[in-house]
């Protein structure tokens, strides 16, 4: 019966050629826009996330009760919680080498970088600025902050008493490579350092307040004696952070483990509403496709009223005739969405070419999201099937006698 219905359905579609062609083109347009849009949005979001957390830690391990201050300045929530629970200076990670070694053996982690962090002030001549001091091991921290690439002046070295300062800070203090700096901590300790270079991390606040120095002099400045204040981690898949953080919590229950998501709530909610609006557009495109197919098939039932009557008179069952229209819906959906997938792919290629040719004016590229593509094609085909239900029911209700009596 299926084969029979398929044959009739195919002929019906073929016989009303322009009608079929128009609706298939309609589905093609709808589906290609869906595919292009979803790829565009996911490309855009991937780019935004890369910009936000590409050069920032994804996960921070810190001692209990110590709110890390190495946060992206945009995040207000952390400032509030930092005020709510005053920093306990004694909180520190003692046996950090052991934890660090453990972390380096974890899968999915790209880098784990020990950090000694605190506030202090720097002085050059008459000028003083309060800064955030970041004691690091360059070989690890560089994998997060890409300091080697982002050094604008001098050399990216911090061995001994060398420091790297933000470009804004350097401008404020009129620092140049080779200048000497006096750094003082709230604990009353101080030390003299040499400016090895300046960096630009692409964030004005960071560029105006951060100073990178080696881990050991930083430990001395803060009186940590071999301990550190946090471990910063980058992972391969940014959205696995919560899952990985949970695993880490199991291994390191005595520490606070914070992910980039908690520090970027606003960005995430912006991304979420962007996804939602993209989803809404796709949903209504789908509704339009479904209604289009339904209306074409409803008209087709009226056009084929005679044929339906004949087929029933010579023995086609109600199920069979319903199937004829369901299959028509499915054929339209399948053809339209496959063509749409092809055309959507073409649009994406076009965009990629444009992004390449723009020379950076379009700062991101998009890739075809295969899962989204399959989902869209499947959902569109199912929607087409759904659209055919009402026409199929209409065809089922028709009695052959009505057709034969009315000639």
């Amino acid at each position, binding site marked *: 019966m299926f084969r029979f219905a398929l044959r009739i359905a195919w002929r019906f579609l073929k*016989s009303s050629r322009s009608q079929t062609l128009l609706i298939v083109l309609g589905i093609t347009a709808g589906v290609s826009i869906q595919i292009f849009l979803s790829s565009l949005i996911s490309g855009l979001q991937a780019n935004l996330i890369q910009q936000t957390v590409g050069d920032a830690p994804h996960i921070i391990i810190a001692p209990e009760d110590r709110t890390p201050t190495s946060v992206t300045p945009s995040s207000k929530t952390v400032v509030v919680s930092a005020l709510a629970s005053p920093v306990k200076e004694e909180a520190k990670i003692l046996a950090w080498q052991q934890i660090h070694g453990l972390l380096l053996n974890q899968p999915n982690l790209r880098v784990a970088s020990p950090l000694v962090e605190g506030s202090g002030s720097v002085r050059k001549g008459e000028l003083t600025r309060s800064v955030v001091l970041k004691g690091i091991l360059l070989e690890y921290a560089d994998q997060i902050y890409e300091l080697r690439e982002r050094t604008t002046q001098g050399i990216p070295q911090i061995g001994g008493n060398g420091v790297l300062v933000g470009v804004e800070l350097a401008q404020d203090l009129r620092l140049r490579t080779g200048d000497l700096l006096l750094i003082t901590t709230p604990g009353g300790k101080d030390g003299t350092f040499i400016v090895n270079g300046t960096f630009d991390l692409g964030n004005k606040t960071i560029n105006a307040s951060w100073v990178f120095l080696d881990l050991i002099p930083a430990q001395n400045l803060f009186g940590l004696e071999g301990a550190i204040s946090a471990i910063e981690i980058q992972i391969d898949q940014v959205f696995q952070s919560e899952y990985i953080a949970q695993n880490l919590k199991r291994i390191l229950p005595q520490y606070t483990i914070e992910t980039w998501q908690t520090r970027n709530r606003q960005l995430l909610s912006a991304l979420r509403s962007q996804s939602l609006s993209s989803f809404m557009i796709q949903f209504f495109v789908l509704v339009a496709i479904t209604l289009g197919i339904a209306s074409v098939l409803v008209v087709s039932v009226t056009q084929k009223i005679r044929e339906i009557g*004949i*087929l*029933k008179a*010579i*023995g086609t069952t109600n199920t*069979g005739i319903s199937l004829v229209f369901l299959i028509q819906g499915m054929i339209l959906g399948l053809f339209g969405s496959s063509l749409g997938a092809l055309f959507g792919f073409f649009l994406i290629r076009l965009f990629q070419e444009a992004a390449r040719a723009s020379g950076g004016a379009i700062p991101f590229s998009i890739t075809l999201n295969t899962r989204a593509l399959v989902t869209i094609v499947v959902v569109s085909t199912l929607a087409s099937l759904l659209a055919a239900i009402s026409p199929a029911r209409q065809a089922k209700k028709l009695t*052959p006698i009505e057709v*034969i009596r009315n*000639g």
Partner: protein
Amino acid sequence: MDDNGLVVTQNVNKIYGTAVRYQVLFNITLTVPRGQFLALIGPSGSGKTTLLNIIGALDRPTSGAVFIQGQNLNDLSEEDLARFRNKFLGFIFQFHYLLPEFNALENVLIPYWIASGRPKGEIVDRAMYLLERVGLKEAAKKRINLLSGGQQQRVAIARALMNFPQLILADEPTGALDTKTGEQVLELLAEIRHESNMTMIMVTHNRDVALQADRVIELIDGKLCKEVYPRVIGIKEATEILESHACNLEDINTPRTPLQEE
């Protein structure tokens, strides 16, 4: 059940409408033996087509029953009736009712497709044979719209024969054709009937056509009125009976069970 009765109708009534009730058939009781060619005649509105449609399982009686080969059609569901029509009956309508989306050969094959799907080579051979039989071998691959009215009706006859039906139901098969073409179609039907001893019920308003049948029944106002066997009593006498105004089936068409008429 009468063993000879391929088709038996028992007290078949048909009433159309619910608010305004209009009775089209009154207590039709009739037996058609296997192999008989029965012509149903009567003025328009006499109910002859309605009776044919009820026998053909296209319509259901309001009361009463139709038995075909002993099977009470009232016991069958809509789906069963569809399968029954496909397997058991061959329809020839006044208008050809072919599917314009298919060529002549495909139209002949459709009854087979409905029942069994993809036709094997021998099935296509049968369809080709039927087309050849109706004189349209050359037109097998032609679109239906390119055929003349007579050719289309002949394709419809071939289609009706495709599934080896036991019963052919024809409703004014020559009604839409000119006299000469109509005669050819009737001749063809007669030949095929003789070859296979098929039972046929034909509705016609044409008395000359009807007189070629084994048996002629005339309906008036939904009741059986006259019955003649032209081959038994001769064309002349049969014509006289049909031309007279008196019914010869008075006893049959008087309702035996009183109807609930308004």
